């Protein structure tokens, strides 16, 4: 199992002008912990919508790389959006699924990817041509190039363990999150 915050820090070490979207819960805490920026759209709710929001952002900002950091639970809830993305085929969109195979935020109940669901295979079946699964440090070394520089849409599933570090909470002021993102980006 890879360490989620370490992998994310590695991916975002050279994020350049990429725009980030993180799903509710630990993905948002990890993004805020390792790469806080106005160009991060943190979700606090609306489970399943981080990936569709990433698509909307990628369409609105075709010159910028957009990377969605989603938990496996969020990805499963929005799983139909993978077909929508494949149909649109935005070259600037990457999806990083931090797959801990559990609903960590609500008490570490087992998730569907712990059972039979294979998110990377679902992405391929939805029309994604570029997917990868990272289980080792060697796999993880390929992630920054795959997620931030290869022509999209791309999706990487990263098999991670549960959080080991304390959560970092970004602002819960919704209008302020939007204002700061928009003034940094538009």
């Amino acid at each position: 199992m890879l360490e989620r915050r370490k992998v994310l820090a590695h991916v975002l070490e050279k994020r350049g002008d990429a725009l980030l979207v993180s799903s509710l819960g630990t993905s948002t805490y990890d993004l805020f912990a390792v790469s806080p920026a106005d160009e991060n759209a943190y979700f606090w709710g609306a489970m399943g919508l981080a990936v569709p929001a990433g698509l909307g952002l990628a369409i609105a900002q075709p010159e910028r790389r957009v990377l969605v950091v989603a938990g496996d639970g969020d990805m499963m809830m929005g799983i139909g959006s993978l077909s929508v993305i494949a149909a649109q085929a935005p070259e600037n969109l990457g999806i990083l699924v931090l797959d801990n195979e559990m609903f960590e935020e609500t008490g570490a109940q087992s998730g569907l990817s712990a059972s039979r669901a294979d998110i990377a295979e679902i992405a391929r079946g939805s029309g994604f041509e570029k997917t990868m699964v990272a289980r080792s440090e060697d796999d993880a070394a390929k992630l920054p190039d795959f997620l931030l520089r290869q022509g999209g849409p791309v999706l990487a599933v990263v098999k991670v363990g549960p959080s080991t570090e304390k959560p970092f909470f970004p602002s819960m002021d919704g209008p302020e999150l939007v204002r700061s993102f928009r003034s940094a980006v538009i």
Partner: protein
Amino acid sequence: MSDSLAAADDGWSAQVYDLITHSGISLVTTVPDAGLTSLLRLCGDDESVCVVTLSTEEEGIGMAYGAWLGGTRALLCLQSSGTGNCINALALPAFTQSPCLMLVTMRGQEGEGNPAQLPMGRAVKNVFEAMGVVCLEAMTKEDVVRQFKQALDMAFAEGKMVAVLIAQQVNGVKSFSK
């Protein structure tokens, strides 16, 4: 006249399309409905408008939020049955006070031939208003244009969640007779 020809001249779509393009909306997302056929065709034929077919309506709420973050305006077009799919998704524009503009063709109203359409059709206004969505009802073709104009201002000048509900009688009732 075939259904598609009738839809192409439905008496409101051309004017709503003009309002869409003149107000700077460049993203139209949809799970389609028969009553939206003409409008979606007009938008689809326009290269300046990106039309995205969704797998479920709440994706359109997420996409509109992402588009707004990136400086683009979006419209979600859906049938009334899809409004129920959007409820928790509406927490996103509500929490962030972001624009959320929806155009809804109603089912489950007077003359509905499919009883399965009745529960959601009757509940649309109540559930939307419970989430803070302003509902503007359109009973005639003229209403659709007038209410859509108002909805544009409410969404993009005031940052509100707003839905124009097009009554079933505007586009005619779907027939289930054999």
